[in-house]
């Protein structure tokens, strides 16, 4: 038989990598966000979302790497216990 060895686009979203986190997660404080979008642009998972001066992360996919916390110029994101 012909076996199609292809995968469909974007199906990886069924893999919830949020389960990788071990104990800590980023919390978006929404206090003094300047809208620089560093968190949005630099998240390796692409799970930070939002617009203007309000951003958050999709905990279904967030692996807890902490980059968003490290790059926020006004420290508006903190790593907290789960």
């Amino acid at each position, binding site marked *: 038989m012909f*076996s199609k*060895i292809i*995968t*469909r686009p974007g199906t990886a979203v069924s893999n919830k990598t949020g389960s990788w986190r071990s104990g800590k997660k980023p919390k978006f404080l929404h206090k003094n966000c300047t809208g620089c979008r560093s968190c949005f642009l630099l998240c390796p998972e692409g799970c930070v979302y939002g617009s203007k001066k309000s951003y958050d992360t999709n905990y279904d996919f967030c692996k807890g790497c902490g980059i968003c916390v490290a790059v926020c110029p006004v420290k508006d994101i903190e790593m907290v216990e789960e």
Partner: protein
Amino acid sequence: MKQFLEGAVAIARTVSLCRPGVVAAYPITPQTHIVEELANLVESKKLNAEFINVESEHSAASCVLGASATGVRVYSSTSSQGLLLMTEVLFNIAGMRLPVVMCCVNRAVSAPINIWNDQQDIITVRDAGIILLFAENIQEACDLHIQAYKIAEDKNIMLPLIVNIDGYILSHGYEPVEFPSQELVDKFLPKYEPEYKLDVENPMTLGPLQGPEYYLESRYAIQDTMENEVMNKIEKVADEFTKTFGRKSFGFVEEYKLEDAETVFVAMGSICGTIKEAVDELRGSGEKVGVLRLITYRPFPKKILFDSLKKAKKVNVIEKAVSLGSNGILYTELTSLFYSRCVEENLPKFSGYVVGLGGRDVSKEEIIDIYKKNKDVEIEFLNIKKENLGSYI
């Protein structure tokens, strides 16, 4: 109308009639004349194709892989070292179910380096899942190329196919060749329209990573296709070819004077011409001998081979390859085929002869000699020159 042409040129012109869109070229003796003629045909606008000079055979095969995955008919040709270099790509093409058609101009493999004919190169990649056909003469080589695209591109098959011709003998030899008209080839070969391809309108991922939960079934699928769809299609296409082009195409095997033969010679490729001459001479003296010429090597036409050979008393397997450390490969496959179907008594005895490696000439007299000596041997190298053995330099 027939034209008297060099084999490579005839093949290139036939391929041109099949309208490939991308041709990848890398030189290696003795296939180079094929790609050179294709270059001429593209340059003179007789063939509308992209002609890519790649930097190695590995890239030639990869290039046709990419083009085939994008939904375009492709072609390339190679020999010997080039074929071995592209081996992993060939496995990849088969595994990705892409209908790449190529020609392998069979040549000996290094070391020692030797540019003359034997079939060791293609036999070494027999496990890859590629459909393998062997031509006896130039006309058949051309005819098999036309059939190749039809077989490979079938939606339920989608496997690569390699047409094999003996280096120098068929690539550089001259024969009168009949070319069909472009209209007839266009009628015979439908447009290549794959269901799964690289297309921005319908994106998909090709070549994924498959773990132990999935890989087995992907490989089983190729075996299943080979044993079912490919076997059916080769027969069907050979019949269609015979009807459309008015020239007999045999499909799996050619049976030559086999009806009452007590001894049968089995071989692939142009050497069958020599063996047929030997058989004619022996028949002239009343010997009951025939030739079974194997055209389709993969899939291995098990039932047909068994049925054709089971009545013989003796089978001499003549092959231009060897599995060093074991026996001849065709010999091994045929004997295991008979052993596994060992339900009848009086099965033929098999002898295996390794001949013609590195282009060593095989004469009609040597074939007659094999018949007359009637040895029972697992493996014998024909015509070893004792003076070349040991440290003779």
